[in-house]
């Protein structure tokens, strides 16, 4: 979990007119937000624009921020709304996501290819989930977000989100089996 008191201090300075504090917040959060959006939206070419929109809305809403929760929850909520608005405008099905994630550096080229293929399959399966389930899966795999934190972002009880998460994992497992990747193959 990121140091919330740093974010709170930067927000306090920004609200008192320190533009450098806002720019520090942007530098700190642009990559995590980009990663979050890329998983949620599934359109890599849109991530730059969506990220820009997130921080634009942050800049417009900055004076209304009150330190009642955490800054990260507020920021992820903005990002979620941006992604949802983009989803409403989008009419095409989600496209497969490119995989840039870490691979086993000690593995062979064949192992690396197989892992990348599996990761692509999994990301496609995530993209195919209904929005409510997809949001929970993506948020849970975002650094520093547990179910209590997620509950503040989605304004939904943590117990409900745990149930949705379990359902989402079950669907992902079923999808992998349908694609011919049984538990044994995934285990490998």
């Amino acid at each position, binding site marked *: 979990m990121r140091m919330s008191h740093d974010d709170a201090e930067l927000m306090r300075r920004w609200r008192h007119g320190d533009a450098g504090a806002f720019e520090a917040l942007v530098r700190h959060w642009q990559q995590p937000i980009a990663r979050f959006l890329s*998983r949620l939206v599934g359109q890599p070419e849109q991530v730059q624009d969506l990220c820009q929109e997130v921080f634009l809305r942050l800049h417009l809403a900055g004076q209304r921020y009150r330190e009642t929760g955490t800054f990260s929850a507020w920021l992820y909520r903005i990002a979620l709304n941006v992604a949802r608005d983009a989803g409403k405008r989008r009419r095409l099905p989600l496209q497969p996501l490119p995989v840039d994630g870490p691979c086993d550096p000690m593995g062979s080229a064949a192992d690396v290819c197989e*892992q990348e293929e599996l990761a692509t399959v999994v990301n496609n399966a995530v993209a195919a989930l209904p929005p409510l389930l997809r949001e929970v899966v993506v948020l849970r795999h975002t650094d520093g977000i547990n179910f209590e934190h997620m509950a503040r972002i989605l304004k939904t009880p943590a117990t409900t989100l745990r149930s949705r998460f379990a359902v989402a994992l079950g669907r992902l*497992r079923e999808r992998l089996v349908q694609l011919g990747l049984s538990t044994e193959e995934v285990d490998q």
Partner: protein
Amino acid sequence: MSCASIRAGLPALVYGDLPPEEAARVERHVADCAACRKEYAALQQLRTLLDAGPAPEVRVDLVALYRQSAERRRRQAQRWRRLATALTALAAVVLLAVSLRMEVRVQAQQLVIHWGQERPDAPAPTPQVLVQTIIQPDPATQADVQLLKELVHALADDVEGRDERYRRAIAHLQDRVDLLQVQSQRRWTETDQNVAALYLLTKGDKR
């Protein structure tokens, strides 16, 4: 403890969401049960694959952001101004209608707007009565008006007289300036002639 209840708790175990005692109990069962162990391993692998998602490099354009922010604030202010103007106009119309007790109705295929209190028994005022009232003020007011007229005329005469005096003074000063100009021109001419004569004299002496 049944495998079904254990498997329901496996996602929480994989993601570290179980309390320590509960986690230990589930782990003991997984160690002894091949089927649950397989399920647990599959979920761990799934988590690894989900964690290895895309990580695009993004750089927010701050200059464009500030420009877009200013533009949106300007448009928002414009919308609020329009709304405020419309609401003010509406409030003014409502206030006018209420204060004048305005009544709008359709009567005999005509739109009728009526305001004020109806006095069906009161007779309509006649123009003659109003005119008589205006052209026959009371004596005190008449005397005041006459006095004001006299004062205004006196002031106007005084202003005219003062203007005439100023015009005469200015004309006198103009004459004096002209005279001084002529005198100075004459003196300059005399000086010029004296200087020329002296020059001739000195030139003759040198010969």
